[in-house]
């Protein structure tokens, strides 16, 4: 056929990378960009910051208790034991953000697994899995969290797992919905037609096309996990002294709310800032990754 060569020559080369359009949309989202900047800043500060500050987070200095900020190098003041608040805030950031990210990874992985399995197999498997998800969602998660925390020795690992155990359901739901709609698409049928085993269809065909909603849900999960950690620690069941987390710092600050308000204000601000930032990024990603906008 002589037309073949001609087809090539007329080929209109539009080399738009699939991600670049989404990236451009994301960049138009001001709050999301702000969120990204704030998150990067918080993570960097938490990781690097404590080395740069000439105070130890655990060093007690009775003479300088309740120093209001800024006080002789204590930029954010000191707490009831005279410990530098800034360095404690940053060390707490390490804990709180780690728990946030780790809980996100665990719950996203588990939720995605449940969602893809339910969406791909359908039928009785779907019904069973999704009813389980519903049951978990019905259960007031803060109580579950507190009950579990009361029985289990609190540590970063256990708190992470407990939070993950109460926050994977949203991901599972989102993924299941996405996979179920993708399941009807021709290209999935095409994979079935070449005899692809279920594992291949799920991992190679379905998952890459569900990545947008998963990323959005994962981002929002970080915000939720940070908040959950703060709850639990604030109520005294979470991260235990002398280790600092934003939640237990708030807890400790309670009694001094009148006399030393900065002890509550700074951790409170950090929680708000991080939760808001992750939510902004999640919103931005939702808009940017909206698959409908990708269809030409």
């Amino acid at each position: 056929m002589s037309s073949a060569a001609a087809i090539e020559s007329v080929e209109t080369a539009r080399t738009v990378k699939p991600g670049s359009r989404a990236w451009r949309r994301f960049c138009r989202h001001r709050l999301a960009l702000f969120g990204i900047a704030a998150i990067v800043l918080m993570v960097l500060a938490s990781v690097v910051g404590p080395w740069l500050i000439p105070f130890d987070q655990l060093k007690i200095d009775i003479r300088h208790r309740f120093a209001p900020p800024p006080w002789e190098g204590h930029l954010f003041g000191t707490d009831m034991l005279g410990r530098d608040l800034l360095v404690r805030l940053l060390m707490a950031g390490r804990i709180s953000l780690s728990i946030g990210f780790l809980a996100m990874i665990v719950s996203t992985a588990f939720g995605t697994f449940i969602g893809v399995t339910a969406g791909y197999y359908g039928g009785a498997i779907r019904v069973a899995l999704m009813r389980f998800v519903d049951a978990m969602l019905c259960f007031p998660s803060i109580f579950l969290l507190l009950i579990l925390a009361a029985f289990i020795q609190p540590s970063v690992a256990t708190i992470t797992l407990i939070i993950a155990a109460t926050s994977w359901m949203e991901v599972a739901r989102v993924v299941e919905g996405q996979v179920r709609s993708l399941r009807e698409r021709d290209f999935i049928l095409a994979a079935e037609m070449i005899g692809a085993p279920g594992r291949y269809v799920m991992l190679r065909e379905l998952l890459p096309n569900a990545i947008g909603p998963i990323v959005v849900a994962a981002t929002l999960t970080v915000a939720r996990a940070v908040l959950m950690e703060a709850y639990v620690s604030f109520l005294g069941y979470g991260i235990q002294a002398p280790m600092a987390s934003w939640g237990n710092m708030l807890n400790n600050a309670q009694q001094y709310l009148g006399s030393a308000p900065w002890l509550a204000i700074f951790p409170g601000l950090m929680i708000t800032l991080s939760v808001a930032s992750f939510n902004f990024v999640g919103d931005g990603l939702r808009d940017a990754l909206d698959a409908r906008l990708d269809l030409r």
Partner: protein
Amino acid sequence: MSTGDIVLEVENLSVTFATESGPLQAVRDVSFTLRAGETLALVGESGSGKSVTSLAIMRLTPPAPLVTLAGSVLFTGADGERRDLLALDLDGMRAVRGNEISMIFQEPMTSLNPVHRIGDQIAEAITFHERVSNRVALARAAELLDKVGIPDARRRLSAYPHHLSGGMRQRVMIAMALACNPRVLIADEPTTALDVTVQAQILELMKELQQATGMAVIFVTHNLGVVAEVADRVMVMYAGAIVEKGGVVPVMTRPLMPYTQGLLHSVPRLDPESLGRDTLEAIPGSVPDPLSLPPGCSFAPRCRHVRPACEAAVPALEAADDGHDVRCRRWRKLAEAGA
């Protein structure tokens, strides 16, 4: 047939979309006239600008700055007054739309509101332009449904769109379009979503209605069979511009533009003599990207008669014969060679 008065005069119509990758000229310098009682077919493939042209006439393209319209669309109303539709304000345009110029679309299901009874939808179209009571409007709606061949019209007034088949819904759309006795009907691929036997019904109906009302029809389609069936005159579009224009018989039996020729040849024929496993005469390649059109004739990269000169500058639309225009630098040579 085409001896009626001129109702529509489109002059140098251009439509430009603002896109992320820069301005996209979807319609370039389109001019034509439409007379009462005639059917003008607008033919082209996807991306040819045929639908955008029809939407631009109705001012149904997205507003500026997303889309900029240039040129003029002179419409002669029932009152004999000539107005440039592109210069009308929104209220003025609304008075024309659906009243003096109506439009029907490819997918009747999306054009009808699924939550309203069809009788109410037609009646609404009437009361929008005329001061009549709802009762009168509904009675008119029943008449219209009867006119477009919907059996048991009075009872069907209370049907919802999803109760009707695709063909029936298209009939309802036509009834709605005809509600105010328009002077011009723009039909954008009205039968493309329908089966052939239903398409035959709808084409027959449109022909009858046109004869009865004397309205002018702009029929947008990609189907050359339908063109031969309905059109008095044809306008072939490619990459946003008119490439050939003329009476249906000369254009379809003695096409001058290589693109029109290719298009006609690539349609498989039904008669048993032409059957067999011979390959069809396809046009190689595909439609150019509207964002990076070739500098010369936009069909040049796919044309088998192409010469270097064709690629240098955009050829003009020349009058080849009485009322038969062609945009091809080499049409004379090709016609002599008996291509």
